[in-house]
């Protein structure tokens, strides 16, 4: 993007104000502020939110951290709820009940539990109907709010409280659901996968595109959780960089059906580099578990090749 200036962007007024109760170093909060910075000044927004860490920590009666209008409904229906809000906007506009100048954007946030799992149907419905909204998943790969239970976004072999590593268990058995691709197959105008890079340009560009592309858009944002992944809070940027350099979390967008890689590592790093930093994978590095890491690598490679194919590479 021409004229991208992080310093300038960081001086914009915050739309998620400080004082909320999210954990120090929480990836979701960093990501959400980055998404909201892509809203143009003067544009109003209604923010939706599935039940989860973000909701219980940012809107505790009688306080709210949200500068924009905000609605939390339940765990599984952020897509449907914002469908209603966005439709109300069109109805009120049509009937002249809103001033011409009132321009609203609609963004909803959900964790991976509320998005990949329990909210999947509601999300799919909202995307298929083509509401002019952005659904942002902050994917931290487990039900963190209730205490680190596995979701369909949890990577294989992760140690979670419902897939605990034990004498006869190596953590989660299944590999993760590829939700970004599933939503792309809804043929909505814009889908992207992103995370935090040093200059935050990727997440900013994709957020702006998602918000300002007419129709339904889906943004899947890898948002590390220091409690669930068990890494030092200060290491978050390193973790994100390793996620994309190992191709565990490829950076791509699907813009009106056009699949495009937005980042390709100069040198694709082995998956161990990503796994080693996190306590939830510690058991993989015990002697005798080499084949588990090999299996993980094989799955990452297979999906990466598949993505390259989709991107016509």
């Amino acid at each position: 993007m021409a004229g991208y200036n992080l310093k300038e962007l960081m001086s914009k007024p915050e739309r998620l104000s400080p004082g909320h109760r999210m954990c120090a170093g929480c990836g979701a909060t960093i990501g959400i502020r980055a998404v909201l910075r892509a809203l143009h000044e003067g544009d109003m927004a209604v923010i939706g939110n599935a039940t989860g860490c973000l909701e219980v920590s940012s809107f505790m009666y009688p306080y709210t951290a949200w500068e924009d209008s905000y609605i939390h409904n339940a765990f599984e229906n952020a897509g449907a709820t914002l469908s209603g809000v966005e439709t109300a906007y069109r109805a009120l506009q049509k009937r002249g009940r809103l001033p011409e100048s009132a321009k609203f954007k609609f963004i909803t946030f959900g964790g991976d539990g509320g998005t990949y799992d329990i909210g999947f149907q509601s999300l799919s419905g909202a995307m298929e109907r083509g509401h002019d909204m952005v659904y942002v998943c902050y994917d931290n790969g487990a039900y963190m709010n209730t205490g680190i239970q596995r979701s369909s976004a949890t990577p294989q072999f992760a140690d979670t409280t419902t897939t605990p590593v034990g004498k006869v268990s190596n953590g989660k058995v299944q590999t993760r659901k590829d939700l970004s691709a599933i939503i792309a197959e809804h043929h909505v105008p814009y889908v992207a996968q992103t995370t935090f890079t040093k200059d935050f340009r990727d997440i900013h560009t994709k957020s702006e595109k998602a918000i300002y592309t007419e129709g339904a858009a889906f943004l899947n944002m890898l948002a590390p959780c220091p409690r669930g992944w068990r890494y030092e809070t200060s290491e978050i940027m390193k973790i994100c960089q390793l996620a994309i350099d190992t191709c565990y979390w490829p950076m791509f967008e699907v813009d009106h059906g056009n699949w495009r890689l937005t980042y390709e590592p100069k040198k694709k790093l082995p998956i161990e580099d990503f796994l080693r930093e996190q306590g939830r994978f510690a058991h993989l590095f015990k002697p005798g578990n080499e084949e588990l890491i090999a299996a993980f690598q094989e799955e990452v490679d297979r999906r990466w090749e598949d993505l390259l194919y989709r991107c016509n590479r």
Partner: protein
Amino acid sequence: MSRKDRMSGNEAVAYAIRQVNPDVMPAFPITPSTEIPQMVSTYIANGEMDTEFIPVESEHSSMSATVGAEAAGARSMTATSSCGLAFMWEELLVAASNRLPLVLALVNRTLSGPININCDHSDSMGARDTGWIQIYAENNQEAYDNFIQAFPIAEDPRVHLPVMVCQDGFITSHAVENILLEEDADVREFVGEYHPEEFLLNPGKPVAVGPYAVSDYSMEAKFNQEQAMIRSKEVILEIAEKFRSRFNRGFGLFEEYRTEDADYILLIMGSAAGTSKQAADELREAGIKAGVLKLRVFRPFPAEEIANALKGCKAVAIMDRCESYNGHGGPLASEVMAALYTSKVYIPAISYIYGLAGRDFTVETAKDIYKELSDVADKGKQIKQHTYVGLRTREER
């Protein structure tokens, strides 16, 4: 000017929806309410109304989207039946606790299992403690009239609660009967415009909806919700009076049919009230003082008013088109008996279960019940509480 026509209950409600022309209506098909969104879609397709219709992918989403639209500042409603209402259950609570004045056209149908598409009240009775106002109709006319009154009740600042307008599946929803329809302009004037105080799309005045609240605050929220339900009674009566003076028909909390000097009263809701009235008429001809109390408003529950209406009779049959699976009576019976007790009206009261899953309720059955009431009241006959009527006999099985 009222206009005479013939339509089914579903047609009548769809006609009222067209007249009200709400801002947003999400809906999902389910028998027997499916016709309502179908007819609304047709009205929209023909340019006869311009409500934004959202063809959602489930009932859970229809209520979720209705909640979102209403919170955003749009007059919103949906329609459903049976399992659809059960699937919405969590959202019913969210709608009421967020004090959203939306409206649900419910076409009563039994719940699974066995899966069955016919009428009883297990769906709405299952939702009786979700914080919704519930109004029941005996026929298509009342379904139409109640729907028109629903928005003014829900949106009154003293209330701010959602309203469920109930009619009996198939019996009312699909049977074509005579009806008086009102002019569009009269209906629109009666319903009025919607101007919410706080809403998501209020430019420059953002609002946050649906908080997490700790124990220090939650209990007061629930208390206030109950206060609104209590206040809604006077509003329901005011709106009913306004409707009556405008259109010359309708009832308040309930209809008292030949109860003034009645010895035996059948207390009932919905379409079977018509059958009961026929039985009462026939018995009156034979000199038996039979009457019917047809409950229109189940939530808020008019406990004192019911007790007062029953205090002069010798015995009452409380008719539940729903099982409560509590081992001692239907939900309506439980509440009526508690109301009688707290008002110190100590008359014989018997809980009857009838018409489950569309089982016919006949004039003969109603007459048998009156006979049983007289045996109890006049001859001291002991009869079983929580009695089923209309069951197959052992031989018939």
